[in-house]
């Protein structure tokens, strides 16, 4: 019976869409300014959304399958170990964000009194449903459907507050998401064609062409923030309202990894070329994201870059696993757990930023507590010993060590230092935030606290018997904290020294380079089209003029001449004679 939970997990949020939308049918329809309720529903529907999913993650045994051949293009819901972990942390992050959204986001800024409306809740639930669906769906249709549903609905979350920056971020997000989706679509089509199955990941994904792999990497790479496909990420995550940012960074970008794990022949086939390429891309992602993140002002942007960097780390590991299939069992588990811990921590961080902004007045006990938890979460993210970060990273170690590139460990270490610095920067910025106190923060704080607690418990859950795991990663942390302290000291003494660096690179980094290029292409296209239009217009003008000349002039009676008897008579006699000649001519020579 519990198998049906797999279905309910993602159908349930969809069912909540209607009550959450706040649409009311009234007699005075149309006379009111808006048919949609300006306020969200009084009941916390969005918070209830993830409950079945969480239940499924906890209650449904691994290996459960629920084939629904009539649904969509043949749906096959299943829960394997990876999916279970994914479902668990995803549901948790959504739950926390949902509670935050439903019970925390009241009012909003004065210029936009309907900050959270029925619309937000609807889109939130849709994204949520998509996210769950793609996790529990073992067939690629479910994955793609959930992926698309999640991606499209998330656009609404990104642009929710309607500010120009949000709209811009939304545009970039949407364009890139769509690009990713079509690439993924193409990749999946080819995958289906080449493997002959729509349910890969069970030993059938073996014979993939390079194009397929490239398309899959590209398509999901956008979601994953693979440099240079990450452009949307630092724009969109900060622009979205806090709960949306939390799920965007905490869960949504993770699905790219899930997709790769499912669709690429992980552990089955050695793909040295693609593996190395992916590993390098991951490293590149990390090395780009960390420095750029360091110079940002907005804590959410910093968190976004941190997410990019972490995704880079996981991509690197995945790449290495692709190179050496033997590493797969360990690598996959590592990636999954790392994703889970990062999801929880990053979700917590984003929510924390929101709480830092609104929960309680500055200097209050609450704020102090919040700041404290933020520091803990930041440490977790940076992989400090005893935190989930360290435990998760420990699982990645063997893979990194086994890599044929010996220098990779050093690079990872450097990036670990970078991460620490980035987190330090984050704490620094957060600390300096000026909170605007708003009422009713009890439930969000509680939910957030739960998330933080889970992060704290994480290492015990996954590495209970491996205390060495808790202690790992101390060195980079030390170096990082050291550097951070030094920088902080210098900054305190010489505030001007670092000022030029802050905000040096705008969020979305490479976008600044791409945009002029796009504009130039557009301008050229316009010029070309204009010329084309002019030529077309002229041709049309000529045709119209000719038409007018013929039909504009009165028809007159052109047969007047024909009715002149000599004319008509000559024609008649001529035709008679011709007919006679033709008749005679046909007969005469042959004698008929």
């Amino acid at each position: 019976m519990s198998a049906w939970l797999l279905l309910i997990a993602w159908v349930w949020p969809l069912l909540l869409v209607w009550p959450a939308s706040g649409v009311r049918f009234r007699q005075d329809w149309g006379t009111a300014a808006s048919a949609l309720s300006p306020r969200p529903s009084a009941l916390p529907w969005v918070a209830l959304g993830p409950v079945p999913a969480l239940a499924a993650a906890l209650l449904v045994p691994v290996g459960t399958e629920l084939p629904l051949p009539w649904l969509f293009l043949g749906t096959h819901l299943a829960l394997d170990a990876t999916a279970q972990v994914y479902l668990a942390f995803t549901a948790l992050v959504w739950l926390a964000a949902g509670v935050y959204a439903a019970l925390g986001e009241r009012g909003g800024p004065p210029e936009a009194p309907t900050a959270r409306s029925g619309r937000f809740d609807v889109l939130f639930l849709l994204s949520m449903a998509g996210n769950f669906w793609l996790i529990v769906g073992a067939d690629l249709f479910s994955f793609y459907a959930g992926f698309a549903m999640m991606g499209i609905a998330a656009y609404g979350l990104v642009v929710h507050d309607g500010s120009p920056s949000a709209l811009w971020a939304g545009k970039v997000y949407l364009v890139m998401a769509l690009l990713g989706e079509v690439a993924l679509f193409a990749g999946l089509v080819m995958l289906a064609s080449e493997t002959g199955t729509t349910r890969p990941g069970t030993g059938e994904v073996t014979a993939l062409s390079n194009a397929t792999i490239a398309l899959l990497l590209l398509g999901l790479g956008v979601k994953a923030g693979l440099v240079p496909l990450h452009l949307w990420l630092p724009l969109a995550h900060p622009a979205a309202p806090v709960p949306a940012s939390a799920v965007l960074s905490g869960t949504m970008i993770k699905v790219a990894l899930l997709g790769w794990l499912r669709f690429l022949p992980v552990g089955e086939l050695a793909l040295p070329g693609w593996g190395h390429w992916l590993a390098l891309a991951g490293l590149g992602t990390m090395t780009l994201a960390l420095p750029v993140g360091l110079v940002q002002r907005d804590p959410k942007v910093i968190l976004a870059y941190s997410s990019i960097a972490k995704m880079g780390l996981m991509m690197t590991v995945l790449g290495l696993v692709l190179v050496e299939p033997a590493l797969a069992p360990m690598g996959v588990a590592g990636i999954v757990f790392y994703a889970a811990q990062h999801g929880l921590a990053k979700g917590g961080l984003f929510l924390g930023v929101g709480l830092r902004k609104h929960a309680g007045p500055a200097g209050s006990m609450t704020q102090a507590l919040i700041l404290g938890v933020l520091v803990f979460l930041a440490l977790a993210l940076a992989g400090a010993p005893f935190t989930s970060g360290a435990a998760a990273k420990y699982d990645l170690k063997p893979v990194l060590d086994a890599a044929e590139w010996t220098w990779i460990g050093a690079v990872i270490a450097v990036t670990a230092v970078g991460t620490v610095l980035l987190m330090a920067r984050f704490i620094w910025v957060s600390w300096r935030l000026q909170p605007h106190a708003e009422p009713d923060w009890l439930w969000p704080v509680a939910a957030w606290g739960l998330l933080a607690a889970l992060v704290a418990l994480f290492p015990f859950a996954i590495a209970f018997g491996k205390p060495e795991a808790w202690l790992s990663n101390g060195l980079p942390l030390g170096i990082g904290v050291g550097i951070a302290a030094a920088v902080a000291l210098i900054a305190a003494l010489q505030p001007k020294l670092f000022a030029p660096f802050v905000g040096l690179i705008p969020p979305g980094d490479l976008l600044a380079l791409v945009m002029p290029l796009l504009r130039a292409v557009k301008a050229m296209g316009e010029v070309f089209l204009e010329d084309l239009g002019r030529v077309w217009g002229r041709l049309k003008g000529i045709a119209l003029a000719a038409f007018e000349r013929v039909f504009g002039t009165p028809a007159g009676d052109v047969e007047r001449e024909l009715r002149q008897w000599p004319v008509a008579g000559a024609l008649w006699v001529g035709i008679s004679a011709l007919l006679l000649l033709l008749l005679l001519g046909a007969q005469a020579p042959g004698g008929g």
Partner: protein
Amino acid sequence: MLTAQFLYGGAGLVLFALGLWSFLVHEPLLRKIIALNITGAGVFHVLIAIAYRGDVAPPDPVPHALVLTGIVVAVSATALALMLGARLQDAEEEDRRR
């Protein structure tokens, strides 16, 4: 016998051609109507010519009957054409007066 038929009928053909020519070339209605009657007369000549079977045998009555019928038809048509012409003339005069 053949010669007589040929000469008489040939004359009819000449009349036919002349009548046609006059009909097609001359504008006035009356001339046209007369020309048509001449054309008709030409055809009747041909018919009468072939009715002739020499001085001993009585002529073929069929072409004669045809000619009689043809004449009545021609008269009728001529009458109507003349009246139409007259009516047209009236109308044109009316137009001119207006």
